[in-house]
């Protein structure tokens, strides 16, 4: 009898598929998911689906097609040469 029931293992595995494909699981946790996925078609399919998702998402970016608008600096130019944050609005992250 293992430490966890099959239901526990299944729910836990389903929640950790991204950790698994990212390599974010420790050795014991990875073994737990490996053991469960050997006998669980859902989780085996989940691993393949998560790997496919990570291959597909970068294709969303369309780097060659997206261009910044020509007027992206219009407000900078119309603000004059003063680059101080003097309009009372929150300053950008400091200390960087």
């Amino acid at each position, binding site marked *: 009898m293992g430490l966890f029931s099959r239901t526990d293992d299944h729910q836990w595995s389903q929640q950790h598929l991204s950790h698994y494909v990212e390599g974010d699981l420790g050795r014991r946790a990875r073994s737990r998911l490996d053991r469960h996925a050997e006998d669980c078609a859902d989780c085996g399919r989940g691993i393949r*689906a998560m790997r496919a998702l990570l291959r597909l998402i970068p294709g969303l970016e369309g780097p060659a097609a997206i261009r910044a608008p020509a007027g*992206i600096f219009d407000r900078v130019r119309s603000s004059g040469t003063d680059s101080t944050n003097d309009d009372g609005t929150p300053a950008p992250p400091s200390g960087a």
Partner: protein
Amino acid sequence: MPQPRRPRGPDILDTEARLVARARTGDMDAFEQLAGSHADRLFAVLLRLLGNRAEAEDVAQEVMLRAWRGIGHFHGHSLFFTWLYRIAINEANRSLERSSRRPVSVSIDAEALQVPASAHDQPSIRLEQTQLHKALSKALADLPPDYRTAIVLRDVEGLSTQEAAQIAGVGQAAFKSRLHQARLKVRAAIGDEALIDAGR
């Protein structure tokens, strides 16, 4: 695993440091050259986060204005682009809060964001890719903003976890938690079979 796409050679960093120094003295041309080199990718991120071109253009202008006004606070302890992206994420979130809504556009510039044509360039497969692309875009648009930001920075932009967490303004553990939860939600929205078929 996505690879960082931004060249970070010593020459580029040296050039960037000199442009930062000039911009800090009020040299607007230097600032435009500096920020302009990141403008296309920054705009793509805003488009993906906001889901609306007009809003993304408005926020992009605001980001540049805030960066210009705040360049005196940038001391070069982080890379310029992480500082600029941090401003962009903050401004995108402020814009979403103002409008109290999530992105409404399912396929942002559907033509511009097509999944690149592959070796399987048959009409029926192109159609499936377009449908999958729309489904992925909708799944991303339906995510809570923090989750969407995590996927856009890490998986779409290909930034490292450290860079993406810094831009999102959270620790790496918190960022990873958001990222994993976001991926699970997208996976659930698309379905395992569709993902596996498309990923072949």
